[in-house]
């Protein structure tokens, strides 16, 4: 295997949890809801995925449990912000705090337990293509799912009627409501989808990236996913590009350490966090562009009146 091939493989591995979590949050935000609980949903997905795979011996059950774990937590969020009209910022934060707490408690029994690794699936014929084959077509099911989600969400948002409704709800909930669409139902579905995606992103960490349970193993990836959605101007294609760039930044630290550059590891570990800040600054300085792309009712409460 060539060096470039190996590097691309590790970039995909580092980026996939970000793609999964961020594509879900993109749909949530397109519907006008800002869920700051991505980090919490991811870490709960990581622990439920690990626990289920461990109990059944089947990593696929783990994948399903990861999605379910994130979804259950997101349902709590949806109930609070949609039906109790709670503050979205504060509720998202609460979700992250609760998720980190719950995962620590559930995961305590699994510290040091060897995990079950999700295997690779070679796609016949395609995986034999030189270079591209091993990189794109000899991956695990979650990587394929992440590719499919980017394409699928892009199609859904801009080519399907339901996607149009979702964007309408996000851009003007009062009008969408007046037209007879159920704003809360659309948003509820979007939040659940986002929760499942975040859970899968977490599950990728505990089933593939480092197949074991480590407390706080998401290490801020949920927040980086939130930043990626802004970076992508709420567009799925750009989001994928951003996620792979961040994956590259994340694995840069391993290669730099291996190469023996005399930079302390802590500074290399800071890179993704600093890169997030830099990227956010670069993208937000253009106020017009941000205003054009941000779903117009993002973060605003909605109470149906009649």
């Amino acid at each position, binding site marked *: 295997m060539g060096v470039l091939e190996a590097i691309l493989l590790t970039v995909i591995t580092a980026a996939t949890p970000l793609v999964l979590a961020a594509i879900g949050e993109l749909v949530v935000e397109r519907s006008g809801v800002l869920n*700051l609980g991505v980090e919490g949903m991811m870490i709960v997905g990581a622990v439920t995925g690990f626990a289920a795979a461990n109990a059944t011996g089947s990593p696929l059950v783990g994948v399903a449990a990861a999605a379910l774990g994130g979804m259950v937590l997101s349902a*709590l969020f949806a109930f*609070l912000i949609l*039906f*109790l*009209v*709670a*503050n979205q*910022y*504060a*509720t998202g*934060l*609460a*979700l992250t*705090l*609760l*998720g*980190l*707490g*719950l995962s*620590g*408690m559930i995961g*305590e029994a699994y510290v040091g337990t060897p995990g079950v690794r999700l295997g690779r699936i070679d796609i016949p014929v395609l995986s034999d293509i030189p270079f591209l084959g091993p990189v794109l077509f000899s991956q695990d099911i979650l990587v394929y799912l992440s590719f499919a989600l980017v394409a699928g969400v892009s199609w859904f948002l801009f080519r399907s009627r*339901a996607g149009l*409704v*979702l964007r309408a*709800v996000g851009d003007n909930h009062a009008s969408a*409501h007046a037209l*007879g*669409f*159920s704003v*809360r*139902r*659309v948003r509820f579905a979007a939040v659940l989808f986002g929760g499942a995606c975040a859970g899968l992103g977490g599950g990728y960490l505990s089933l593939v990236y480092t197949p074991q349970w480590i407390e706080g193993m998401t*290490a*801020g990836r949920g*927040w980086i996913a*939130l*930043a990626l959605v*802004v970076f992508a101007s709420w567009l799925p294609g750009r989001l994928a590009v951003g996620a792979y760039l961040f994956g590259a930044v994340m694995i840069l630290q391993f290669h730099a350490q291996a190469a023996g550059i005399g930079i*302390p590891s*802590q*500074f290399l*570990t*800071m890179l993704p*966090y*600093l890169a*997030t*800040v830099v990227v*956010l*600054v670069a993208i*937000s*300085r253009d*106020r017009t562009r*941000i205003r054009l792309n941000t779903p117009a009712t993002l973060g605003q409460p909605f*109470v*149906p009146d*009649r």
Partner: protein
Amino acid sequence: MRLELVRRPEQSRRMAMLSPLLAIALTLVSGAILFAALGHDPVRALGVYFIEPLTTSWSVQELLVKATPLVMIAVGLAICYLSNNWNIGAEGQFTFGAIAGSGVALSLNSWDSGLLLPLMLVAGILGGMAWAAIPAFLKTRFNTNEILTSLMLVYVAQLLLDWLVRGPWRDPGGYNFPESEVFSDAATMPLLIAGSRLHIGAVFAVLAVVVAAIMLGATLKGFEIRVLGQAPKAGSFAGFSRTRLTVFAFLLSGGLAGLAGISEVSGTIGQLRPTISPGYGFAAIIVAFLGRLNPIGILVAGLLLALSYLGGEAAQVSLGISDKITKVFQGMLLIYVLACDTFILYRPRLVRANPTGEAAHGRA
């Protein structure tokens, strides 16, 4: 039948008082269920968790020790949140304040002077302010989302601390432990009660509460914070500057978090370590909301959250329950607070399914 929310003509004062109490009650009920699910007698477990820590004078002092940083940070955060500035990186400002103050202490560790401690505290405050100034500057100058930048800087500050105590600031005589030298007496906060761990940081926390209560309740600045937070346009017409207020709120909360950080290191720990906080900066967010963003309320809420830390330790010792349950309680509490706050502004009403209702013609 379904539940519907009807907006009240004005905020319910009664609910505003009741909501935190209701949230606490709901947390206790959920806690009892959780303990029962873990196979413990719920009444005894709740007793161990929430009552036992209040029964000895040592643990009551310990309660005040833990409430000190929580209250100090939360007062600053409340002013941020009231003015609609979402600083969630207090943990980072706490850490960087501790680093800055400790830098002074460690470089002057042999200087036996009464000036050393004040100098450290000022450095801690400035450190916290500097760390908070970054998201404030980026927000006001480049329109950057302060939630994400302030949070990212938490990781950066923690990694910086980790590097310092394992690298340049590691105690050469410390058997290779990742710890700095122990602070000299001159660099240690004076104790309020000899023999306890309660230091004068607690006085700073109370002072912060008093000053913030006066500022919010009786000054033009307090009015500005509320107006710009609730109605930015009205505030702008009144001649208030959002930019200036954002900078003010961040510097104030960063400074308080920095003061809390150096107070904790100098008063409670006595040296720098890789981890200097059990998540005070995040728990303070809960304190701020539980205290209804009101300084006096925050004082009470800070004590309650401090109790949750102590209760977690007690439950681990007496019942063998992991102290990880602390964070579950804290998260649950915030969820319930936010849920109960709904009823300050809205009144629940049961309605029969209505053919002209939203449910009937919702298509999506």
